[in-house]
């Protein structure tokens, strides 16, 4: 049986901790809206799973294979600290995807319903007016002729 000085360094908890930071880091990346951001939720999930695997391995090595590996205290401390970013990443993943379906919404090729809504200055603006030449629209866009299209952007708002 190897003595204390011969026992191997247990690096798994550090890898686990690093992946936990990576998982939460993915969430921060959304703010800069990088290309391929659609992959970020899954990357975050992958990092979180890898973090769990490495933290688990680290704990198992430190406790079940204590004769081979060091790092009992370290593996526990890193696992506990990593739980915070891991929990947050998991929560964000579930909450961000709690969205109703979009199959009933207007699809490509379909005609959209008309509407009239108040703009930021309280003036009513209709879809017809948005599609008409500017000048009649509420904001001072300098479009001389009618736009080819309008881009309707529905957003969650600031409540």
């Amino acid at each position, binding site marked *: 049986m190897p003595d204390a000085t011969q026992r191997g360094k247990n690096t798994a908890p550090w890898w686990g901790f690093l992946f936990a930071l990576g998982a939460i880091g993915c*969430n921060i990346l*959304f703010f800069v*809206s990088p*290309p391929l*951001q*659609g992959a*970020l*939720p899954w990357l975050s999930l992958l990092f979180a799973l890898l973090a769990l695997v490495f933290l688990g391995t680290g704990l198992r090595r430190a406790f079940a294979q204590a004769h081979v590996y060091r790092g009992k205290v370290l593996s526990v401390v890193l696992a506990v600290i990593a739980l915070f970013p891991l929990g947050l990443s998991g929560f*964000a993943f579930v909450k*961000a*995807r*709690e*969205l*109703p379906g*979009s199959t*009933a*919404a*207007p*699809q*490509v*090729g*379909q*005609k*959209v*319903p*008309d*509407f009239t*809504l*108040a*703009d*930021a*200055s*309280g003036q009513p*603006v209709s*879809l017809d007016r*948005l*599609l008409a030449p*500017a000048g009649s*629209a*509420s*904001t*001072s*866009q*300098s*479009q001389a002729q*009618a*736009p*080819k*299209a*309008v*881009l*309707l*952007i*529905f*957003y*969650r*708002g*600031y*409540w």
Partner: protein
Amino acid sequence: MPEFEAAGVRPVAISVDAPELSRDLAHKAEYTFPILSDPDTAVIRRYHLLHMGGGPDGHDIARPAELLVDSSKIVRWTNFTEDIRVRARANEMLAAAKQLR
């Protein structure tokens, strides 16, 4: 925004926010496009984009969605995200806009 204008597309934002809130947003972010208010979600419902209880205090809001609608009110391109963190990027919307003839 000038790019959208050059492509002949007028962006329009719609949410449940009151006009005052939209005015603050437009001012802060220097948005020049119309920001419309649908506080009672009538239009959001008409478009089937209601996220019931989606607001932090449990009231109804719009799910994020982008629709490119041509001059005959036909949808030409859509983006319905499945994750509120993943939004359509301006260059994706611009690419769709430029495909219009």
